């Protein structure tokens, strides 16, 4: 059986603002963020969020939201798709 896992937290990104500076990618302790292959309208490779990172799921620490200089990381919030308790 295939079970879909959602992390408790998710990161909302405005990809048009991202300039691919990669500060958030380095900052994330779980390495949930990575640079996309695509470019946005400014011509930068933008950052993408994956709920399951190389070292675990997003814990909602918000470090990425604090350090993003472009306000491209809009919000780090509870994931409504997450399974609570069951």
């Amino acid at each position, binding site marked *: 059986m295939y079970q879909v896992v959602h992390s408790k937290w998710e990161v909302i990104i405005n990809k048009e603002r991202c300039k691919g*500076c*990669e500060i958030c990618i380095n900052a994330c302790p779980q390495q949930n963020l990575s640079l996309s292959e695509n470019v946005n309208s400014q011509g930068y490779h933008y950052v993408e969020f994956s709920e399951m990172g190389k070292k675990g799921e997003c814990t909602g620490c918000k*470090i990425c939201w604090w*350090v*993003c200089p472009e306000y491209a990381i*809009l919000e780090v919030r509870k994931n409504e798709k997450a399974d609570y308790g069951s």
Partner: protein
Amino acid sequence: MEVKQFSSIYENGITTYCPGCEHGLLLKFIGMALDELGITEKAIMVGSVGCSTLAYKFLNVDYVQAPHGRAPAIMSAIKLLEKDKVVFGIQGDGDALSIGIAELIHAANRGIPITVFMYNNMVFGMTGGQMAPTTPEGMKTTTTPFGRDIKQMGPPLDACKILSAFPQISYLKRVVITPKPIFTKDRVMYSSKEAMDSYKAVLNAFKTQLMGGFSFVEFIGTCNVNWKMTILDSKKYVHDVGVKVYPPALCRDAFGVDKR
């Protein structure tokens, strides 16, 4: 679920700064602080010449574009006439300490309750990386290709020391806004402490103005393009060299906002 928006930031606003520059971080914190204190509807921003002139496309508040270095004079006049509004301005280190130092000193001496944010990246950024009064000794810039010679140009200016001389300043602080890189054996991470401290400083600067005092906050940040470094190297440079010349300090807090 709707994404939380700030009324002080344009929904589709894009910052046009170089990738890796913390100026955008400063603007984000100003927008957040204005909304948190509920003062967006009565805020008036005065932009200066330099990278802060690009701020008005991002922040959705009333805006006056000042000549190079003259923002403190314009802010003082507006605040004297519109006493219940929140008047603040963003200047660079060249704007505030080179051409505008007379205006800054007189505005600080008068102590009219305005807020001055100074983004200090130790060079003139917008014009291509020339030496600024805050350039540390020996740093190479486009007008000091052999490093800053303090025998001729003197040592770098310390805004906190200069402004400490004025008794009617209420909040004088220097913070580092650059996230500190933390090197582990296989990767590099960034700390968010500097960002949180900067946000606190912005908030407290506005609170000081609301209590009737003059506030000045200096942010030490990077200019990786004009320092000719990669983004990671520029963050290291701030924490290796920058903080030695400009250590973070709370030089004055007359209303005790930092303790609350």
